[in-house]
């Protein structure tokens, strides 16, 4: 077994991250067609109470292993064709779990890291939810989505507080913009209905957590909790959609980021965060710690002189080296009515 260690840029108080490359093979029992390394992430979730839950922002960072990797031989609209007949019909159409495709393009780097769900599969074609902009000769990687059951265990092996009522259970919140969907692990004395549910009691174990999505854990048990998640390291850039308003973002970078290396500021508010000489009008990055009790706000300062351009906190302390650690999530508040953009989240192409 090949073993190596990668250290994150820094360790945040609320999230302890340990990342260990343990094997190039699969931890999920599937066949790998590529050699993305795999590893473990340990997340620390702060303890709280029912009356005063603590929140921790986390993200899987690691992905499911690559189920297929190959070259596009033809493309028509949202349908991508590959050589041979490598798949069975409907293999990736959702019946056996949700899958998505990633586009890798050396010719057009701007689209590398584009992700799109797969809606149907033949033996040599996949159809995505939307056209991806890919071209013949581009590489595709197909992965299965990470689900709530993957991250926290189908039987809540992570050990979140489970009761017969969402109001007294630990909750897992997945945001779409500013709106969250709440999930929790239900259990009662009969154990007849044990499982992950939403607030309408619909089964939720297979709810997916996209690479761009952060997860907010509302912890009501007093004890802190360590959660270990294993998976594959996603290499290469990832395009993450940023909307106007609130974005709860995960990080797909197992290497870790800083604000300076995040790629969030591009110098153009059409392709990155809006900078300003006033924090109240700039897009904001908010990092939560201490169970949500501490919210550190950062923005990119710029003015006509460009003398002080850079990331700062609200006390105008330089913040470019502030880390966004693997396994964490953060909030980006996009101000100013600017357009939505794709954040090009950088990650090494190899480890």
């Amino acid at each position, binding site marked *: 077994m090949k073993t190596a260690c990668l250290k994150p840029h820094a360790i945040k108080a609320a999230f302890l991250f340990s990342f260990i490359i343990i094997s190039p093979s699969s931890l999920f029992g599937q066949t790998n067609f590529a050699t993305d390394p795999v590893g473990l992430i340990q997340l620390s979730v702060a303890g709280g109470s029912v*009356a005063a839950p603590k*929140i921790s922002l986390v993200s899987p960072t690691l992905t499911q292993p690559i189920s297929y990797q190959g070259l596009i031989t033809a493309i028509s609209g*949202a349908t991508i064709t590959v050589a041979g007949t490598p798949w069975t019909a409907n293999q990736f159409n*959702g019946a056996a779990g*949700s899958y998505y495709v990633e586009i890798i393009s050396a010719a057009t780097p*701007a*689209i590398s890291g*584009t*992700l*799109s*769900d797969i*809606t149907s599969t033949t033996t040599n074609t996949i159809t995505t939810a*939307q056209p*991806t902009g890919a071209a013949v000769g581009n590489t595709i990687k197909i992965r299965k989505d990470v689900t709530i059951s993957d991250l926290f265990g189908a039987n809540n092996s992570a050990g979140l507080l489970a009761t*017969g*009522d*969402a*109001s007294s259970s630990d909750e897992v919140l*997945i*945001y*779409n913009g*500013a*709106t*969250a*969907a*709440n999930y929790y692990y239900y259990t*009662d004395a009969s154990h007849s*209905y044990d499982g992950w*549910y939403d*607030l*309408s*009691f619909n089964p939720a174990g297979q*709810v*997916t957590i*996209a690479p*761009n*999505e952060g997860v*907010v854990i*509302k912890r009501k048990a007093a004890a802190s909790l360590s959660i270990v998640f294993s998976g594959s390291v996603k290499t290469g850039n990832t*395009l*993450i*959609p940023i*909307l*106007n*308003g*609130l974005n*709860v973002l995960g990080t797909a970078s197992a290497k870790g980021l800083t604000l300076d*290396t995040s790629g969030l*500021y591009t110098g*153009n508010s059409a*392709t990155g965060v809006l900078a300003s000489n006033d924090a109240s009008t700039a897009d904001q990055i908010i990092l939560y710690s201490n169970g949500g009790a501490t*919210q550190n706000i950062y923005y990119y300062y710029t003015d006509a002189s460009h003398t002080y351009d850079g990331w700062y906190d609200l006390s105008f302390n330089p913040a470019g080296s502030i880390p966004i650690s693997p396994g964490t999530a953060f909030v980006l508040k*996009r*101000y*100013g*009515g600017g357009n*939505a*953009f794709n954040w*090009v989240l*950088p990650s090494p192409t190899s480890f």
Partner: protein
Amino acid sequence: MHSIGCCHPQQVFNVFDGYSQNNRAKTTTAVQMNKSILLSVILSHAIIPFASATTIGFGAAPSSRSVVEGNLADVPVGSLVLVGTFTSPTFTLSGTTIQQEVTNAIADGGWTQFTASNLSTASVVGHQKVGGSLTDISAAADAFNGHSVYLWVFDTNQISTAQQMGIFAATSATPAWTFPTNNGGVGDGATLSTTTTATIAAIGGRGSVTSTQLILAAPVSAVPEPSTFTAGALLAFAAMGMRRRRRA
């Protein structure tokens, strides 16, 4: 510092539409939310919902109180549940129709509904429960900060066709039925309970509560029950008969 991004707007749509929308497609509620967010992308210069994000949720579960009509039969699937607050919750309803009582409660109680959306009852192991969540991403959410949460439940999916209703508040609950303070970010939400961990009371003189049920009721002077009508008719006929006998 990296300067990488160079995708044009169409690519924004491609990534968002293609991935996020369908990634959420496994849950109906989330799909609807995504559609609204998709709209915000398309109208990105017109909609800037970022300053507010208060969320109130109720968890439907087997142990939650069921929502039933006066005859203790479960309300229909998807019955209307409004969430909001009253400034003067000591009013007493005396209308003869549901519509009248709704109008009176709004006027006398100072009702303000939380968001223009509503919850619906959900089927859980054969019974109707209050479940789901509402989020207000407008500045209007600020007005609810710290106020008590009330549930206004009807026996159909719209007020105009409802025959019964009940207004419910928790006199004691952990977590309390109180709107959280809107901080415009994550964590500004509360998930509340209708199980016996919450002591719930009906207000306004409509409905009642047991350990297992939230019971709706019809307005007092609404269409009389058949038994009431029969008794009244008998008394009237008896009075007419006595008058004829005296004349004779």
